[in-house]
């Protein structure tokens, strides 16, 4: 009886603790979802993998993605950006042929702003215009 009475007296506090736990859970869940969203955005980012400045690895990764989906604007953008970065460090000559091939394959009037930016960068780096 004492336990029941004490529990009844503590109802308000127990409800408050539950509200705190539930709302914290929701907030953490939302943060996690948001975090995963950011992660997937990062994965879809043409610059993904290039942050550490390992140009060769980035280029290899971009080549693999481009080979897998050559018509997808994101791998196209990733490929062009990787080529531009490599050209900046090693010079454009070795990669010019490959860059021109990719530029020829992509649609220049794409709606994808990331791809358009990557095209513009590559055209400047490889002086194709």
């Amino acid at each position: 009886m004492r336990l029941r009475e004490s529990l009844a007296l503590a109802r308000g506090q127990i409800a408050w603790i539950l509200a705190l736990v539930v709302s914290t859970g929701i907030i953490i869940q939302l943060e996690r979802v948001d975090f995963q969203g950011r992660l997937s955005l990062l994965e879809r980012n043409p610059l993904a993998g290039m942050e550490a400045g390992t140009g060769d690895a980035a280029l290899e990764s971009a080549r693999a993605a481009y080979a897998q989906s050559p018509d997808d604007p994101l791998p196209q953008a990733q490929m062009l950006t990787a080529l531009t970065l490599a050209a900046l460090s090693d010079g454009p000559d070795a990669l010019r042929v490959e860059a021109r091939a990719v530029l020829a394959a992509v649609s220049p009037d794409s709606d994808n702003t990331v791809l358009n930016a990557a095209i513009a960068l590559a055209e400047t780096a490889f002086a194709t215009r």
Partner: protein
Amino acid sequence: MTDRSTPPHPAGTRFQRQEPWEHNAHGPLHLAVWQFLAASSLFFGAWYLWWRWTESLNWSAAWFSLPLVIAETAAFIGLILFTVNLWSPRSPRRPELPRTVGDTVSELVGPDRPIIVDVFFATYTEDPELVRLGVQDAKRMEYPHPIELQIHVLDDGRRPEMARVAEEEGVNYITRSDNVGYKAGNLRNAMYETGGDFIVICDADTQPFPNMLTETLGYFRDPQVAWVQTPQWFWDVPPGVPLEARLRRRFGAPGGWVGRQVERVVGPMNKGEDPFANDPQLFYDFIQHRRNWANASFCCGAASVHRREALMEAAIRSWAARIDELTHEEERDAARLTGEFAMFEAVRDSARMNRARELDFTPFKLHVSEDIYTSIVLHSDRERGWKSVLHPKVVSRMMSPNDLLSWTIQRYKYAGGTLDIMRNDNPLFRRGLTLPQKLMYAMTFYSYLSPLWNIVFLCAPIVFLFTGIAPVATYSLEFFLHIVPFLLLNEFAQLCGLWGSSAMRGRRWYMAMFPLTLNALWAVLRGRRISFPVTPKDRAEGRYLRLVRWQLLFIVVNMIALVWGWTAFLQGTPGYSLGAIIANTLWSGNNILSLMVIVRAALWTPDPEHDLPVMEGYRHEAA
């Protein structure tokens, strides 16, 4: 003890049964868990505040961010003091009852004899029939050894009908020609006219139980125990309308059945139970009782037993100290005037004599909070080492203010009186008190400063919801990871430490009464005198929305702010992240719920079937 009225339900809550609470004696394991949780909560709280001050301030909105972090820090200091207060229930052992006066003193002067106890009933305007009930109960007090019980009615109203009641009951009637000092002056006057070894202080509505002396006098075997305070239990607290009865009224028998099933699962749910949070269990059974280890439980007036010698001796010491103080002041003035830095001994004696003639000798300080004042004086008498005890068992019953007007008068008096002592005779700077005693008194005084930070807590979610400006650098996961462990541990600590009481109710009222406390604080800061009005014992009819206008304003603004904030969030307005809006909705909702308790109290009317029989029990008894 409670056979005077038939409770509306045989089971239900103790308010329905009109039974006092039983002392919550937590076992050693329970205490260890409480102390672990409390210490962890303070550790995580300190960690959170450190992070708040060093990493999370939103300097682009410092006008908002800084007051909030200061308010959080101030509240955390209060939490530390509260934790120190509740830390341990260690209390003095109660020895066997003294047989004679010789058992209660270290050195007996004169021959040994039975103990003489004076019982004082201080009254002014209260119903004489109410006082009669207390007197009749006092006459029934038991003691296993010969004892001389002298009951006195101290009538400051000089009423013939009160004198008649005293005569009919065969007890002494004491009155005086003026009302100087109100209740304190009344008690002082009675002390001059009586001579018992111990004094039981009762208000006009106090009805002592037969075991009051057998429960308390044992402590006085220790000649250093100056007083024993017992809990003030209000036996007329409205029990409210049970869910079952409410649903039965609306939906008939099926509704009643549903209500009964719900209450069977979650416990009694009485609407309007203790609408003014008058039940003082939390205060006596936890806050005051857990001051015993520090010898710092203070006297609350009614339902206390005092050693006359302690009151008189403390008064003499205070009186002598005040004469010395005034003589020194006079000496300094004379030195400034004459350039003579050493006053002749004869002149000094003469000055001292003059001050002694002018200065009133008062066993009770003439102050609105005379009980706490007297406690401080006795506790700080290091030479005698007076002790106080809070005996946790309820041994009397009294009546509570059952309308918001009376409640406001009473609480304003408490707040103003305590703050007045803090301003003018702060025990923290008083010589003689030990560190634990100072901490306990600090906790009492500090709690009355709470509106200064509570108002920031009330405004903060409103500001965010209206502006989208966050008081923290960001409502990110990092913020929640810092604050949530502290909040949860604090809740669990309080749940464990205050197990057996309704801590949430106390906390809500603590927040809800901010305008009253702020008002008292402002009055004291301006040097206004806090008056001594008698708390009305009869319920005043009416709705008191004017008394809760600030709380109403905050509730309405909070609601508008919630609508505003969510609209801004749904429209994608910058600054309104989902985490921030959830956190502030929870905060704002909690503020609304806290403020609602006093608004409900302002609108409350007793239920004729469930509340009135309990509230008016004493009338039936008197009849």
